[in-house]
């Protein structure tokens, strides 16, 4: 009975890892489209998003089945309920990656904005999602805490993007749509960071039983 339960918990972990991997892929595809200025790179994204949604449903149902049939307690219970919450954040991450790709696809962004730390933001968010999932699979408290701390990098990048966009607006005549789109992309990336923080927060909850006040 117990071994069956362990097996199912393990399966759940695997499914979470796979879903996390798909989210990372979604971000990197959206980022590639954005940074290379080639919208066709993100053609596979809607399918990926669909995949992520499908995975969310599957994980939810396996979590509920675990809760109903095995009636886990203590740490196991926390883990299953954390997973149940985490998939929502992961799914949002996938959505936001899709949103970024859609903005790129509209083609308003024509100029070269290497001065904006978008690349850095992308790398930071991918790292955060990756680490948060790793922390979940290894039940690694330190890593989860590190993810939450790493959000500062993303936040400061976002502030910098905002400031630089204002400077650009002041200095020269540019297409207003372009600036707004860039700001939105930066905001989406910042949101992805926040969702990664949530995921890490739930990982912490599953390990320690303490709910982090930062989880939104």
């Amino acid at each position: 009975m117990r071994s069956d339960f362990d097996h199912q918990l393990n399966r759940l972990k695997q499914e979470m890892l796979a879903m996390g991997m798909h989210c990372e892929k979604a971000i990197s595809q959206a980022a590639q489209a954005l940074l290379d200025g080639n919208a066709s790179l993100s053609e596979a994204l809607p399918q990926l998003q669909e995949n992520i949604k499908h995975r969310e449903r599957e994980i939810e149902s396996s979590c509920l089945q675990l809760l109903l049939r095995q009636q886990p307690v203590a740490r196991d219970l926390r883990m299953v309920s954390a997973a149940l919450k985490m998939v929502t954040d992961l799914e949002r991450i996938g959505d936001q990656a899709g949103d970024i790709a859609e903005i790129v696809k509209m083609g308003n962004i024509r100029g070269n904005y290497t001065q904006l730390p978008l690349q850095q933001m992308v790398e930071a968010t991918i790292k955060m999602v990756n680490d948060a999932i790793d922390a979940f699979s290894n039940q690694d408290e330190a890593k989860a805490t590190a993810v939450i701390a790493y959000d500062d990098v993303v936040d400061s990048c976002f502030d910098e993007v905002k400031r630089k966009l204002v400077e650009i607006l002041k200095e020269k005549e540019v297409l207003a749509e372009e600036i707004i789109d860039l700001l939105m992309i930066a905001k989406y990336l910042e949101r992805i960071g926040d969702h990664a923080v949530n995921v890490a927060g739930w990982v912490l909850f599953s390990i320690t039983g303490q709910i982090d006040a930062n989880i939104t």
Partner: protein
Amino acid sequence: MKKRIFHSIAVATTLVVMISMLLILFTLHHAFTLNQQRQLKRYLLLAFQGVEMNDISYLTALPEEGLRLTLIDEDGTVLFDNQADANEMENHLNRPEVEHALLTGYGESSRQSDTLFEKQLYAAKRLSDGRIIRASVSHATIIKTLFSLVNALIVVLLLSLGVAFWLASKLSRRIVAPLNRLNLDKPLENEGYDELSPLLVRIDSQQRTLLAREDQFRRQEKDFSMLVASISEGMILLDHEGNVLFMNPAAQAIISVSGDYLGKSLLSLNRNFDLLSLIHSAQQGKKSSGRIEIGDSFYLVSAVPIDSDQSLRRIAVVLVDQTDSERAQKQRREFTANVSHELKTPLHALAGYSELLKLHMVKKEDLDSFYQNLDDRVHKLISLVEDMISLSNIDEGAYDIARQEVDLYAIVLEAVRELAPFADEKKIDIHVSGESTVIIGLPKLLNSLTFNLIENAIRYNKPSGRVDVSVQKQQETVVLVVKDTGIGIPKDEIEHIFQRFYQVDKGRSSGGTGLGLALVKHAAQIHQAGVDVDSSLGEGTTMTVRFPCLQSQE
């Protein structure tokens, strides 16, 4: 086995003891009965004599104990009985022994009495006057004998059982002892039962084959693991849930796994999307392969499901490093693009010049410099094409021809002589030092090697600079050093300078083809020579080519 033997012996002994006791009982009883009958007959004869002589008074004088005597009249009426009242007794005419005695003079019979335990034996004889004298004795049946002996029997039985059990346990232990002492590791060295020897011989031969097979298996496994550990291709074996069953060192390096990986899911070790999607489709039973990028390297991955049964399915993943071929392909693509570009630029210039000339749009006084320009461009184009031909010759192995003795110093002098106008033009001093040194090689290639090195030293020099060329024999090597006081090469570009069409100066204002150093490198390679670059930015570059002397001994 001991228990079994013990039981068999104990049961057998008990049965034998009981059966023999019963048999003895029966025999004794039978003998006893016969004896009693004989005695009865004797008493009867005695009584017969007594009655013949003294008539009934003999009988009445007898004591009542023991033998029972009865006198019966011819008609069956009991005349006397020494143990009962004769008047109350019934007619005895139909008693078998009486009937028999009346008929033949003597009769015998036995009758069961009221209880099971006693029997009456009768013997009767006819007196001379026709009356019958009968003697009878009560006789214990076998059951009664048995009952009377029961205590003794039980004691004997218990005793014999005790002895039987003791013997049984002793014997069984003794029988089993050699079996327990059997050394199955060395079956043939055992002594004991001959009956076991076929079995032991069989065990021995099987043990041998088993050992041989184990040995073979172990060797194969060792060979296999050595092979797998040493190959550069990554190999991973996964179970149907994607947990790692095996991973060779190459694979560990490729997906950067350290520490414990056995039994963990690949997903928790590495999350390369493309790799895992390939494995995922292999998990669905579909053989799949593709090219994936891990870090800066490219791998050709094939994931193959082994076994069709879902729960027993294994997935073998092989990763083949394709970084080099990928790079080579990229380089070739770049080369082709570069060649077309390099050829196009001077050709366009030529086309421009010729058009101007055709349209007579050049002033007369400019014609000379115009022709000079035209000439320069054409020569540059020629030298470019020549370089490219040399390079492709090297690539095709066209220089795999007989080598000959070449004086490197002479070649240097020749190159310097050829380049003297160019050096003068740039106001650069060339100093040559060294002595005549003969190496074995291909004169044409060595020519272009020295020419290109010295030409570069002049081209990328500062005005009024200096070039030092020396040829020296140092122990096992012949060293050609070309030292300039030029602009130098930035540190991070040194590794690129031998690439085709690579020029540090992206503006290409120097007039080089970008193929010179690529030629130098290949020519050096063909002579098994190494090229060292030592450069500091703004101060100059020293190129050192070391030819192995061994060549001259070949």
